[in-house]
């Protein structure tokens, strides 16, 4: 037993030494999480403070109410009236030619209907190939219409019966832009561990050093154990970097930090087993890396990193639940957001561990056969 442990330590040390000698891999280990999260921060800042969207407005009514609505729209923070046009056709043309993203047309009789307490309408034409911008124009039109009606009601001292929905998160945390940060940690863990599998097994096989390693007096358990331990160390490093960035970003981690490390470690070991399994069929390290990147897109969609499995289409929900990574990502969110302990994420950790227990011996067996 002592010998197995000693050999495992030796292999782990060799792996880490090899990593430190390869500046590219070392830089990737360090830079990868930082770059990925930096890009996320840039995107989320664009979402928080978007540019003002140019629109055109056609006032076919010319009443006091329509002018008031235009005034309100011009005060909106999300849209900017680039031009006032005379006809509906000119407004539509401006959108279709790509000059502006949206147009608001106030039809004739608009003011009259408001004054007579009837239902009026406005037409919002948008270039729907710009999804977010279109949505923002519709939202701005709705908000400013509501504001106009509110003024009208206040003026006439009218009260409106309505039902308002108030939402409360169970963590008690107000809505912030950091909702998908735990998903990033999950994705970095998965991609990092898959890269470790490429480094640990395939590249060694390409260099021809793997059979030599297998021919040493060390048993296979120590070899794989050592590689796994090295992955755990690099994973720990990556997790630390990511957590530091999270904290600098103002994310409050409500749960236990050791539990986060435990979850990412389990995710990393499962991914390493998966990588080991794939490497028995795909021998080239570059092909394996390409496969790793190819996996990123489905993982974005289905591993629960950026959308909860429950919010997917029924088919996707089932697939998502079958992926052990989904359980890991869920556990990370529950620890970080809800501050849940083992009692809350026990099932997630069991699924991750059980999947590893099934996959690892299989991967080792098939890997042994390829030698």
């Amino acid at each position: 037993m002592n010998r197995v442990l000693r050999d495992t330590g030796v292999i782990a040390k060799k792996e880490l030494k090899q990593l430190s000698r390869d500046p590219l891999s070392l830089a990737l280990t360090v830079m990868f999480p930082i770059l990925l999260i930096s890009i996320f921060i840039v995107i989320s800042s664009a979402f928080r403070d978007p540019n003002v969207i140019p629109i055109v407005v056609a006032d076919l009514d010319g009443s006091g109410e329509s002018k008031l609505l235009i005034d309100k729209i011009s005060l909106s923070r999300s849209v900017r009236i680039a031009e006032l046009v005379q006809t509906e056709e000119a407004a539509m043309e401006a959108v279709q030619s790509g000059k502006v993203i949206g147009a608001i047309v106030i039809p004739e009789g608009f003011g009259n209907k408001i004054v007579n307490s009837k239902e009026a309408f406005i037409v919002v034409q948008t270039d729907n190939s710009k999804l977010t911008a279109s949505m923002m124009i519709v939202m701005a039109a709705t908000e400013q219409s509501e504001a106009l009606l509110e003024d009208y009601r206040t003026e006439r001292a009218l009260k409106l019966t309505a039902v308002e929905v108030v939402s409360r998160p169970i963590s008690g945390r107000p809505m912030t832009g950091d909702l998908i940060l735990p998903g990033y940690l999950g994705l970095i863990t998965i991609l990092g561990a898959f890269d470790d599998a490429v480094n640990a097994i395939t590249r060694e096989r390409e260099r021809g050093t793997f059979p030599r390693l297998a021919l040493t007096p060390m048993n296979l358990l120590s070899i794989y154990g050592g590689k796994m331990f090295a992955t755990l160390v690099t994973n720990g490093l990556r997790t630390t970097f990511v957590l530091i960035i999270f904290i600098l970003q103002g994310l409050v981690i409500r749960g236990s930090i050791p539990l986060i490390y435990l979850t990412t470690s389990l995710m990393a070991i499962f991914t390493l087993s998966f990588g080991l399994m794939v490497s028995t069929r795909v021998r080239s390290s570059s092909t394996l890396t390409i496969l790793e990147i190819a996996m990123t897109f489905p993982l974005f969609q289905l591993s629960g990193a950026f959308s909860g499995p429950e919010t997917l289409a029924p088919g996707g929900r089932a697939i998502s639940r079958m992926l052990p990574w989904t359980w890991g990502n869920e556990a990370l969110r529950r620890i970080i957001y809800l501050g849940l302990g083992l009692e809350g994420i026990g099932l997630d950790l069991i699924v991750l561990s059980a999947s590893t227990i099934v996959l690892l011996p299989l991967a080792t067996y098939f890997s042994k056969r390829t030698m």
Partner: protein
Amino acid sequence: MNMPRLKVLRDVLAVITNESRLLRRSRSAILISLVVIPLFFTSSLGAGRGRAGEDYSTTAKLPIAFIDQDMTAASGNLYEVLAMSKDFNMLIQGYTEEEVIATLGKGGIFAAIIVPKGFQKNLLAGNTAYITVYYDDGSLGMLDVVTSNIQKNIVNFNPTSKVIQTFQPSGFARIQILQKGTKFSGFSVGLTVTMVMVIVFATFYEIAGSISRERESGTYARLLVTPISLGAVMVGKTLYDTGLNIIRSFIVLGLAIYVYGARLNTDLATVLISTLLIAILTMGFGFLVASLGVGVRAVVIIEFFLVLFLFAFSGFIIDKELMRGITQAISTILPWAYGIEVFKRTILIGQPLTSLTYQLQIIGLSITAFYAIAYLMLRSSRERLIR
């Protein structure tokens, strides 16, 4: 046809034949390039978003608690409206507020709708009545799907038909927003992203990766010292990869149309031309990266960041027009962003390709610049090698 032109054509054909032979010999390359990437990307999109036009409600089969603290006709009506809608098939009653808060986040229920005491009283007095939605914020996106479905159904809610005739009493002005613009499914939006990603992802590796691999294995130097001109090598590789991209595009489109029911708002020729423009742009960039003399691993790393940059800055996640500062600058200089715009405008809203001259000019200029710089750099490295 004169002799030099014939020779160039023969050389180009020889390069294409060589590339095809290499592909045929590598089973994993065929699998990854033509099966795994198109299949992975398209089917994960279909699984995540559902078929095009598929009508499903994300909250329909989610256990959601309904706690009626008011116990009036109005709150009962609200329960009926929600339960009868197709959005809340699993409304569970019998929980208390405390029990719900303790259960949420542990997987049993995903949200709770609480109708507080005084709900009907407020409505009858003409005041705003509130309902509270507790949601599990450990489950990403849950708040949006639950509240949007409540708000969608609450429009049909009539507090007490006996007491108040309509929810929106007459005598109040309302403004309806009529939305105009081409409508398409979420799957179709995803399809444009998927197509571009599949093309960029596979094409870049096929060009830059193949040259780097040949360089590492030593066959690239041998290819350079043959009488085949560098131009013929580049054209040959480009034509070969164009062929692969046509096959790939048909696989993705076939899956999207016949399996997931996607509908294109333009003709097939426009889709193919747009696809090939993005492919040739990526090939040019691939040649440029390969001309730097980088290894396969570096190519893979560059590919990863290229895909990441495209995802972040080319209008996939957030429209280019909404970006400002550094993000806008990056988005403006990324030629793929214009290709993606062409793709979205043609496939999604059916705009003719000929009306997108500005975007096409930028793509054309970028392709020319990539190819020209790559050619000059590869030629100088060839001259160094021959000397």
